[in-house]
């Protein structure tokens, strides 16, 4: 897989769609060939979600009460742990620099990369969340709202996380620095996401929370790719 | 009254924070001067 196979000709202008498509396909293929990352994310999610009932006791009412929030935190931490791998490999062997020379607009292949990363981390978390929710004794409506909230929220986490990862490329301080940068930015997503499921569990409508999450997702999709590209350029200078 | 404690803790902490910042500003300036001296010494060695 290299950049040359995707261009139409020697001096053709790139397009957003082509750039997105080849970057997405490349990273997805890499993720499928090396499923370790995805399995790690999923295993972490399930493990930590299992730790909480062991820690706070198995009272069903308590678990149902804390379920949405705990599951959200576990998903958030699992997504966070998958972030360093997003750019690290390509940065280390110079591929990131090569991709910057691509004729396709930079936001296109960066978005493709992040989309593939989400498919390999956020999407499995979303799909698994109802199962974990059953372990916590959540009712079907809450399970559905939780999955919907995660579906809207995990892409935002991927985008925000990608921006922080790009900013911290090659920095001293490693994972702790990334945590300090990313986790505060994750907080609004967590509040609205968990709030949606908790509202549903309390019998109220989750629509306000989900609407705000959707608005956040649209804003993130529109604005963050440019910020991520700026961060990558800063890192490569 | 009990409320005096809360007032003192609040205003006291603020005064402490401001004082700490002043001290930090002085210390930063001293450090900058020291770095300039080191630069001058390094250059003098050439």
């Amino acid at each position: 897989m290299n950049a040359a196979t995707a261009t139409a000709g020697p001096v053709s202008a790139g397009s957003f769609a082509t750039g997105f498509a080849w970057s997405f396909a490349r990273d997805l293929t890499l993720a499928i060939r090396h499923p370790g990352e995805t399995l790690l994310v999923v295993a972490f999610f399930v493990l930590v979600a299992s730790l909480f009932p062991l820690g706070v006791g198995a009272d069903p009412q308590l678990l149902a009460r804390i379920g949405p929030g705990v599951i959200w935190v576990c998903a958030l931490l699992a997504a966070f742990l998958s972030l360093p791998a997003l750019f690290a490999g390509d940065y280390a062997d110079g591929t990131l620099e090569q991709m910057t020379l691509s004729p396709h607009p930079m936001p296109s292949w960066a978005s493709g990369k992040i989309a593939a990363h989400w498919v390999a981390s956020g999407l499995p978390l979303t799909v698994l969340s109802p199962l974990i929710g059953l372990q916590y004794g959540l009712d079907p409506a809450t399970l559905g709202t939780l999955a919907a909230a995660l579906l809207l929220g995990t892409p935002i986490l991927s985008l925000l996380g990608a921006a922080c990862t790009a900013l911290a490329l090659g920095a001293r301080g490693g994972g702790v620095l990334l945590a300090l940068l990313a986790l505060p930015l994750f907080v609004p997503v967590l509040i609205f996401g968990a709030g949606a499921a908790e509202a549903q569990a309390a019998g109220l409508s989750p629509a306000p929370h989900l609407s705000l999450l959707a608005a956040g997702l649209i804003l993130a999709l529109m604005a963050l790719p440019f910020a991520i590209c700026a961060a990558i350029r800063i890192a490569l200078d | 009254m009990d409320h005096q404690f809360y007032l003192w803790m609040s205003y006291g902490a603020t005064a402490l924070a401001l004082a700490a910042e002043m001290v930090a500003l002085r210390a930063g300036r001293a450090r900058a001067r020291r770095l300039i001296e080191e630069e001058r010494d390094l250059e003098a060695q050439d």
Partner: protein
Amino acid sequence: MNFYYFSSPATFYRLAGTMAPFFFAAALATGIAGLYMGFVVAPTDAQQGEVYRVIFIHVPAAWMSMFAYFVMACYGAISLTFNTRLAAMMARAIAPTGAMFTFVALWTGSFWGRPTWGTYWVWDARITSELVLLFLYLGFIALANAFEDPRRGDRAAALLAIIGVVNLPIIYFSVQWWNTLHQGSSVSFKGTSMHVAMLWAMLLMAISFWMYTIGAALVRCRTIILERERRAQWVRAMT
């Protein structure tokens, strides 16, 4: 007239040195006036007694914490757009003072909450967002200092500040979105329900903190300039 005269660290160094004492003096004057109004003129509150007087620190500090972050992000945007050094140095200069005021807002809020709400801490929307703001400041400072090349740190931190500015509207509007324990806004452009002496004391303290922040940022910026430009002729000729 050259608008960019003071965008050179050398010329700005002298300007900041001249301006800073005036800002500190203004901060002291308005601070004394504000505290006088707050403790001597303003009456005892009907419900909270004397402890409400924490408001003269708490609210101005909270306002400054948000405003300083916004100004820091603006300097970050300027430094990235024009690729200047000085704007980035000013952003770095503001950050510690902003973080300090965020901490003060949280601390005084905590000690105001204990006698009035019965608890030192509650996970309410505005308080949580203010705590997140403190971490945003710390993240900015950490990122700016995480690289060997200070210019790389400048640019990365500037971009981080711009991304984090989204948190400010969330803090501001959080009290409307969640009807929670924290008091809603009592001060707006339409008018206020506060007693006029309390309002004036609060505004004077806010101006005092603002003047102080500018003064501290100018002094800190001078130090940053000295460190960064220590190999330049004008620095070595100076000391």
